[in-house]
């Protein structure tokens, strides 16, 4: 028999949800994760790049979910000039369908129950406090109660809204994305490529992340406001025709990324928001795997404590803890993004040229941004904070 009363219910089994589940379950509270799709980790709507250091806090790197080890970034200016940077910290390209599944296994090992094909379509509320969820499983309407609900329902998040939180993403902050996994003969296996320019990906960028020998994720994000005239798919088709006309494509996915500072309010009585649902994505890069897991860990840990100590108000400390750990940094990245996205093609071209004049050993990401910001001195202080401290 399926139980219908838990300490904690989590909506969504992405990296943020399963990480929250694990850190709560490890404290001995009962946890249920409801996922609408038939499988965890699929479909993969992701470029699959992460910083190695960011992930080590959560899981030991394992070749079974690592496709490629990255130690270089290449930036390609609108005129085609390439600047390459050694990335000492190292990045990884994941096989997310296996990675997400491994995270789910860690949660279930810790004692969390994960049920797929359960679509959450409402909240149970008592005097404004969230006390559980309504969901549909195999055509049957069900309810389950909990002391706390965590909404980890991704970019398409609605759960927070049902608790009265303002969570939709302003259209100018939504990156509208599309990606193919395609054959890319000759593309380096140790390098992530980023392309910039108004004809390539206006107010966004295009990426090529290698997934294996001669196969890559090629995708792009453009500000959703661009869609008034031209969709992300049109830009990607154009790029593929110009650069990989004979490439064979194994999959195509679309997606959205909220590229903005974190929601000011991520909690309400009985509910906490994590991951994309809380806009925890790095607004400059659009990377949200690790930062969503950081949010999941903080929220899961605090939820577990709040339940064990029977202190419902403890959940509000989550907002300030997030702000200290990540939120502040994202505010800086967001300001840099605003400057960066407004660069003209000419600025990008000049930047590449100036950068390539630096001696090789001085070509770092910090230096790239500092060079970039000669054009926008007011941002220098922000950049210094991120890259020098």
């Amino acid at each position, binding site marked *: 028999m399926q139980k219908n009363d838990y300490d904690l219910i989590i909506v969504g089994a992405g990296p943020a949800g399963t990480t929250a589940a694990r850190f709560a379950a490890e404290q001995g509270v009962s946890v249920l994760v409801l996922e*609408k799709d038939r499988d965890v980790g699929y479909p993969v709507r992701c470029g699959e790049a992460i910083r190695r250091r960011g992930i080590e806090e959560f899981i030991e790197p394992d070749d079974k979910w690592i496709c490629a080890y990255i130690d270089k970034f290449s930036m390609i200016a609108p005129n085609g000039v390439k600047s390459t940077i050694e990335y000492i910290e190292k990045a990884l390209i994941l096989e997310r369908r296996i990675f997400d599944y491994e995270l789910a296994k860690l949660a279930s090992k810790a004692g969390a129950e994960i049920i797929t094909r359960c679509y959450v379509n409402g909240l149970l509320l008592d005097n404004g406090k969230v006390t559980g969820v309504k969901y549909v499983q195999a055509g049957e309407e069900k309810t389950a109660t909990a002391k706390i609900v965590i909404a980890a329902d991704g970019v398409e998040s609605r759960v927070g809204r049902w608790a009265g939180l303002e969570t939709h993403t302003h259209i100018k902050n939504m990156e509208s994305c599309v990606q193919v996994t395609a054959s890319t003969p000759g593309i380096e296996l140790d390098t992530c490529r980023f392309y910039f320019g108004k004809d390539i990906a206006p107010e966004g960028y295009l990426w090529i992340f290698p997934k294996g020998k001669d196969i890559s994720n090629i995708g792009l994000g453009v500000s959703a406001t661009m869609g008034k005239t031209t969709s992300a798919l049109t830009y990607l088709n154009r790029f593929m025709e110009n650069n990989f006309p004979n490439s064979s494509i194994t999959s195509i996915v679309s*997606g*959205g990324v909220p590229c903005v500072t974190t929601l000011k309010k991520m909690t309400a009585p009985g509910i906490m928001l994590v991951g994309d649902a809380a806009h925890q994505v790095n607004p400059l890069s659009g990377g949200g795997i690790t930062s969503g897991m950081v949010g999941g860990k903080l929220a899961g840990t605090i939820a577990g404590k709040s339940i064990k100590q029977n202190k419902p108000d403890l959940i509000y400390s989550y907002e300030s803890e997030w702000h200290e750990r990540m939120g502040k940094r994202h505010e800086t990245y967001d300001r840099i993004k605003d400057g960066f996205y407004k660069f003209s093609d000419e600025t990008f071209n000049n930047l590449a040229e100036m950068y390539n004049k630096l001696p090789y050993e001085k070509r770092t990401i910090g230096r790239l941004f500092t060079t970039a910001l000669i054009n926008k001195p007011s941002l220098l202080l922000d950049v210094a904070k991120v890259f020098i401290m």
Partner: protein
Amino acid sequence: MNYRMSKKGKLLIEILPDKCDFCGCCVGVCPEDAIELKEVAIEIIDDRCTNCSKCVWACPIDVIKFNKEGVLKSPATSYI
């Protein structure tokens, strides 16, 4: 004619479910919580939609259309 009705007159937003990838980008930008997205099903919640078109712009693959004639009621388009 039997048109679907939004919060503001005839419903003018139409999702082409056969072409949809169910990615949720439209749901994320909808200010009215007027889109229901399941694993492989998507539908406008008529009486919440204000025809604001943000979902049309945000869709990465162009499968949400602004239909100025209005969207007809038809059982075939009801996927939910």
